[in-house]
C-alpha cells in the first residue's frame, strides 16, 4: 500500500505546472477562473496549439500517432495540474473521442486525412449522437442515412450538439437499417459541417449560453470513404467511444479549482463586518463539500490505480460521474449563496470579474451546470447501471 506518487511522477507534475504557468495565455486563464461557460474557438485553438508545441495535445494517443504513452499516473497528474492552473478543458470530441477511435477502427486513408488536423488543432469536431426524441435511450436513434451507390444520403436531425457551431466536422451515428433490433443498423459517418444540406439552430440553455445546437440534414451526401467502420455495425464503435470517457468524469480537478475559488470568495466577501469564512454555518457547508471532494478524489484514485488500472473500471465510472456532478453542483450552489445580492446580476458577457473575488459568472455556471447530471447518461441511468452491474439487482 502506497498512496503517494513516485518521484518521477512528481517531477513530471512540476514540469506540467511550469509549462502551464509559462504558456497559458492570461485572457484564457481569466475566463476559466471567472467560471465562464463559453470558450471561443480561437481560445480553444490557441491553448491546444500551445500544448501541441510541447507534444502534449494528444498525449493519450499511441506514440506512433504523436501521443505520449504516459502511465495512468502521469495522465492523472497532467489533467489535475492543467485544471488547477485554470487552463481550459482539452478538446473532448476530436482529441478524446474521435482520435483514439480512428486509430482503432479507421482506414489508413482516414487516419492520414483526419488525425493530423485534430492533433494540431486546426480542425474542431463535434459529436452527432443524441436525437430530439431519444433522451438517454441512445440506440433508439432515427436519423436516416441511405446508401446510394458509394454515397450515403442523410436526412433527419441531431440535437444537443455541443460546439456544433464552432466545429469543422461531425462524427455521427445514423440509422441505416431499422428492420431489426435497435442496436443493429447503426452506421458511423464523418461529415464536414459545411456540407450542402447541413443547417443548424442554436439551442440556448436557460441561462442564455450558446453551447449546443440542433443540426438538420437535408439530403446531405457523404461518401463511403468517410464511413468509420462497417455498414450497420456502428453501435460497437459508439460503445467504444463512450467507454473512452472513463477518465475524469468525476471532474475532481475542475471541482478542486472551483473549490479554491469558493474559498477565495468566502475570504473576500464581507457580510456584516466579518468575512464569510468566519460564519460557522457557511464554513461547515464548505468544509463538508471539501471533505466530500477529497473522498471522491481518493475513490477515483482507488478505482484508477487498482490492479489493471483504469482499464479495469466498469460501473465504477458511473459512481464517479454521479458523485462528481453532485459535488460540482454543490460548489456552485455555495458560490451563489456567497454572492448574495451579487448573484442577481447577469454579468456582462465580456466581464471577467463582475463580482468580488473570482467566480463572477458563478450564478450562470450554477444554472448551466445542472446539465452535468443530465448529459452523458443521466445520473438516474448511471444508478441503473450500478444497480445492474455492481449490485446485480
Amino acid at each position, binding site marked *: 500500500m502506497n498512496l503517494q506518487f513516485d518521484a518521477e511522477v512528481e517531477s513530471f507534475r512540476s514540469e506540467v505546472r511550469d509549462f502551464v504557468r509559462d504558456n497559458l495565455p492570461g485572457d484564457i486563464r481569466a475566463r476559466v477562473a471567472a467560471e465562464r461557460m463559453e470558450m471561443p474557438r480561437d481560445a480553444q485553438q490557441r491553448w491546444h496549439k500551445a500544448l501541441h508545441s510541447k507534444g502534449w495535445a494528444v498525449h493519450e494517443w499511441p506514440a506512433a500517432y504523436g501521443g505520449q504513452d504516459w502511465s495512468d499516473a502521469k495522465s492523472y497528474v497532467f489533467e489535475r495540474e492543467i485544471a488547477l492552473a485554470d487552463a481550459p478543458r482539452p478538446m473532448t470530441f476530436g482529441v478524446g473521442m474521435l482520435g483514439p477511435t480512428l486509430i482503432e477502427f479507421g482506414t489508413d486513408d482516414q487516419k492520414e486525412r483526419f488525425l493530423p488536423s485534430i492533433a494540431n488543432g486546426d480542425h474542431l469536431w463535434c459529436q452527432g449522437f*443524441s436525437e430530439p426524441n431519444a*433522451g*438517454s*435511450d441512445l440506440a*433508439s436513434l432515427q436519423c436516416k442515412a441511405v446508401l446510394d451507390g458509394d454515397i450515403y444520403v442523410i436526412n433527419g436531425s441531431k*440535437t*444537443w450538439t455541443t460546439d456544433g457551431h464552432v466545429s469543422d466536422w461531425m462524427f455521427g451515428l445514423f440509422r441505416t437499417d431499422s428492420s431489426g433490433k435497435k442496436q443493429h443498423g447503426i452506421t458511423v459517418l464523418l461529415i464536414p459541417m459545411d456540407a450542402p444540406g447541413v443547417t443548424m439552430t442554436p*439551442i*440556448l*440553455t*436557460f*441561462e*442564455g449560453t450558446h453551447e449546443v445546437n440542433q443540426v438538420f440534414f437535408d439530403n446531405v451526401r457523404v461518401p463511403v470513404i468517410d464511413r468509420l467502420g462497417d455498414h450497420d455495425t456502428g453501435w460497437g464503435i459508439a460503445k467504444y467511444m463512450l467507454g473512452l470517457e472513463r477518465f475524469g468524469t468525476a471532474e475532481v480537478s475542475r471541482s478542486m479549482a472551483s473549490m479554491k475559488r469558493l474559498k477565495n470568495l468566502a475570504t473576500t466577501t*464581507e*457580510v*456584516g*463586518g466579518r468575512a464569510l469564512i468566519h460564519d460557522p*454555518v*457557511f464554513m461547515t457547508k464548505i468544509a463538508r463539500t471539501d471533505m466530500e471532494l477529497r473522498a471522491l478524489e481518493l475513490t477515483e484514485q482507488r478505482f484508477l490505480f487498482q490492479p489493471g488500472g483504469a482499464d479495469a473500471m466498469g460501473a465504477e465510472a458511473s459512481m464517479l460521474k454521479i458523485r462528481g456532478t453532485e459535488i460540482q*453542483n454543490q460548489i456552485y*450552489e455555495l458560490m*451563489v*449563496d456567497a*454572492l*448574495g*445580492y*451579487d*448573484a*442577481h*446580476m*447577469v454579468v*456582462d458577457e465580456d466581464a471577467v470579474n463582475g463580482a*468580488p473575488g473570482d467566480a463572477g459568472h458563478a*450564478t*450562470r455556471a*450554477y*444554472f448551466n451546470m*445542472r*446539465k452535468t*447530471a*443530465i*448529459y452523458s447518461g*443521466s*445520473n*438516474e441511468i448511471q*444508478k441503473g447501471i450500478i444497480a445492474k452491474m455492481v449490485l446485480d439487482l
Partner: protein
Amino acid sequence: MDFSLSEEQTLFRDTVARFLSDSLPFDKRQAIVDTHPGYSADHWHTLAELGILGLPFSENTGGLGGSAFDTMVVMDQMGRALLTGPYVSTVLLSGAVLDRVGADGVEDIIGGARKVAFAYAERGAGYNLNDISLTANKNGDDYVLSGKKIAVLHADTADDLIILARTSGAQRDQEGLSLFMVPAGADGLSMTAYALQDGNRGADITFDGVRAKVLGDVDNAFGLVEEVADQASSALCAEASGIMWAIYDLTLEYIKTRSQFGTALGSFQALQHRMVDMYMMCQMAESMTYEAALAFDHDDPDARRRSVSAAKSLIGAYGRKVGQEGIQLHGGIGMTLEYSIGHYFKRLTMIDATFGDSAWHDARYARLMLTS
C-alpha cells in the same frame, strides 16, 4: 379554523389568473423580458385597472385595504405566470413605505402613473438591513446623500427613489437610520442598470451629494423598513409557492407523457418517489405561505419575524430542491431557454437571494428561539 378563500379572494385570484394567462403566455414572455424595461407597460396599466396596484393600501388612500392573505393569493398567481416588473419594488416596498409615513404619492402608484424604487442593499452588508454606510447629512431643510446602493430593483424605470440612509450612529446600528426620497434624475445621482437573472432589472446607484427629502421620523426608520421587508418577504413566499406548484405541474405532466426505453417516464418507481417528494415539498411550502401571511395578524414583532423567517427559510430550501429536481426529471429539454422550467428555477433562486436566503432566516429564527 378555515383555510378556504373568501369570495373576494377567489374573484381576485381568478381575475389575475385570467389576465395573466391571456396576456402573458410563456411563449411571449421572453420577448418582453429581452426588451427594455423588461416588462410590459400595458400589463402595468391593466394591473392598475384591476385594482391590483392598490390591493395592499388602505381605502382612504384609494386602495382596496387588502390583507397579507389577499396579497398572498395574487402573488401566487404572479409566480405561476412568471410576471416580471416593479410590483414588489413599487407597490410592496415603496408604496408601503410612503403609506406608513403618510407621504403623498400613494394614489399615483395605485393609478399606475408613478413608479418608485427602493434602495436599501449595500455591498458588504449581506441581507442585513441595519448595515448601512450611505450617509445623509442635514443641509438646511433637506439632506445630502453620499454613498452607494446595489441591486435596486427596477430603478431604471422609477420616477423616484426611496433611500435607506444613515443619519447617525455607527455602520451597523439599528438606530440612526432614516428614509429619503429623491427624483430618479436628481443631480449627483448616477445609475448603472443591468439585467437580472430572473428577467427583472436592477441597478447600482452612486449618490454623490444628492439633495433629498426625509420621509418620516429621522433616526428611527429601522423598525418600519424591517416590517416592510417582512411583508414583501411574505409576498415573495407566496410567489415562490406558486412557482413551485407550477414546476410540479409541469414535471408531472412531462413524466406522464414522455417515453423512454418504450415506457412512460412516470412509470419508473424511482421517479415516482421523487415526484412524491416534490409534491410534499410543495404542500409544505404552501402551508408556510399561510404562516408568513398570518404573521401580520398579530402585533408582536418577534412573532412576525419568527413566522416570516420560518416561511422564507423553508421555502428557500424546498424551492431550491424542487427547482433542481424539476429540471433533472425533465432532462435535456429542462435545460433550454425556450422551455419554462429553467425560468421558474431562476426566479426561485433570486427570490431566495432577496431579503435573506435560507441561511440568513435560519439564523434570525435561531436568535429568536433564544429569546422566546
